[in-house]
């Protein structure tokens, strides 16, 4: 054999190899290139075939990645729901999101404040501690005025604001007409008219009328004044009772009726 190719080797390195080195390298190549014994060959081939069988068998890994992905998505979904519900319960969500979350969770029996209720600082009043509304034009529950910790007939104002008695729901510094509440800032409603959507003109003296109470029939659920009609239709009687005790829309009428003495 002629290992290595001396001419190409010499040209590659730019050296002229001596004769002893040439023959010595050829001897090394010949001696090293001896094939192994047949018993060794058989052992090597058996090992190779075993390795080939191991690698040729299809290895199906079922959904390691997809399972992990599902777990991550599940954890993220649960975290999102809990976070959303918590924020909604605290009333810290924007009004549309708050309403949407309240609507969705109401289906599964979780009662969350809606956007209008969550903006009311008094909406945390416990409804069960208050007696039901009594019939009357102003929806004043007997003894309710004494149980209230709010300023008489005045709510929704900024701290330190001195409002006109019987005026509520206005923006800080806003002066509404006496007995007018629930309107949008700057909205002027008719005296004694409440629960009016912006631009809505209600019938005077027709606020938060519970069933059986005096007043013209409205689509507003009992005590659910200050809400849009669509929202009010979904309110259950219990919620209505709850909301009616906290809704600022009922307060002007109370104040107007003189059941609660005005502050100051």
């Amino acid at each position: 054999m002629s290992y290595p190719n001396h001419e190409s080797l010499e040209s590659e390195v730019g050296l002229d190899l001596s004769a002893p080195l040439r023959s010595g390298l050829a001897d090394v190549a010949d001696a090293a290139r001896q094939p192994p014994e047949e018993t060794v060959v058989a052992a090597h081939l058996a090992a190779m075939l075993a390795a080939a069988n191991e690698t040729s068998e299809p290895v199906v890994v079922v959904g390691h990645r997809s399972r992990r992905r599902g777990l991550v998505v599940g954890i993220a979904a649960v975290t999102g729901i809990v976070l959303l519900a918590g924020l909604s319960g605290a009333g810290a969500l924007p009004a549309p999101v708050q309403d949407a979350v309240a609507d969705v969770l109401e289906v599964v029996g979780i009662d969350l404040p809606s956007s209008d209720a969550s903006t009311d600082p008094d909406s945390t009043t416990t409804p069960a501690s208050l007696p039901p509304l009594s019939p009357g034009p102003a929806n004043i529950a007997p003894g309710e005025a004494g149980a209230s910790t709010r300023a008489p007939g005045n709510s929704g104002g900024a701290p330190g604001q001195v409002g006109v008695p019987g005026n509520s729901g206005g923006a800080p510094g806003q002066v509404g007409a006496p007995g007018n509440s629930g309107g949008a800032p700057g909205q002027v409603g008719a005296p004694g008219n409440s629960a009016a959507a912006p631009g809505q003109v209600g019938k005077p003296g027709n606020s938060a009328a519970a069933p059986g109470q005096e007043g013209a029939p409205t689509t507003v659920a009992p005590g659910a004044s200050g809400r849009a009609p669509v929202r009010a239709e979904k309110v259950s009687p219990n919620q209505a009772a709850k909301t009616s005790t906290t809704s600022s829309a009922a307060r002007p009428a109370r104040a107007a009726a003189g059941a609660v003495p005005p502050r100051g």
Partner: protein
Amino acid sequence: MIGGRFPGVLADAARGDAVAIEALYRDTVPIVRGYLAAQGAPEVDDVVSDVYVSMMGSIHRFEGDEHSFRSWLLTIAHRRLTDAFRKLGRRKEDAWSFGVGPGEVDVIDITDIESVALTRLRTSGVMRAIDGLTEDQRAVLLLRVVADLTIRDIADVVGKPETAVKALLRRALASLDRAMSIEGGDDELSEP
């Protein structure tokens, strides 16, 4: 060399065909085993077995011609050799330390032809000269002389630039030339 049948043989071997696997093995084992034996691999047939088992584990991912296949296979052999020396806790520089001395020749296990041939070469001085090379010089020289790889292929195997491989090969041959001339002088002097 397998030649024009190589792509088909490679594909069959990747599918586990025994005939194709044996064809690849018999065609390449002389250079693989020769390189490992010349490097002084411990338990050379075990290392050869490791090399071919590793080859079978990744042969389905190999793409290239027969020339590239040999280079790829010797890359595996080079790495398995490093692993084998690491297991023994010794450096490749010590590869030729056994059996080199005049009094140590008799303790070498000379049960096969290869051992006998290499032992003769060691005692004749060629292998002693190679033993005096650095690890990189010896690897480059043996890949060129025993495995008959090109400079570019050797660069791929040892992970060095072609210019570095060429420089290593040049220095290795120069050192061998000097050592052979000295050995020749010593042998002549030592002749009775």
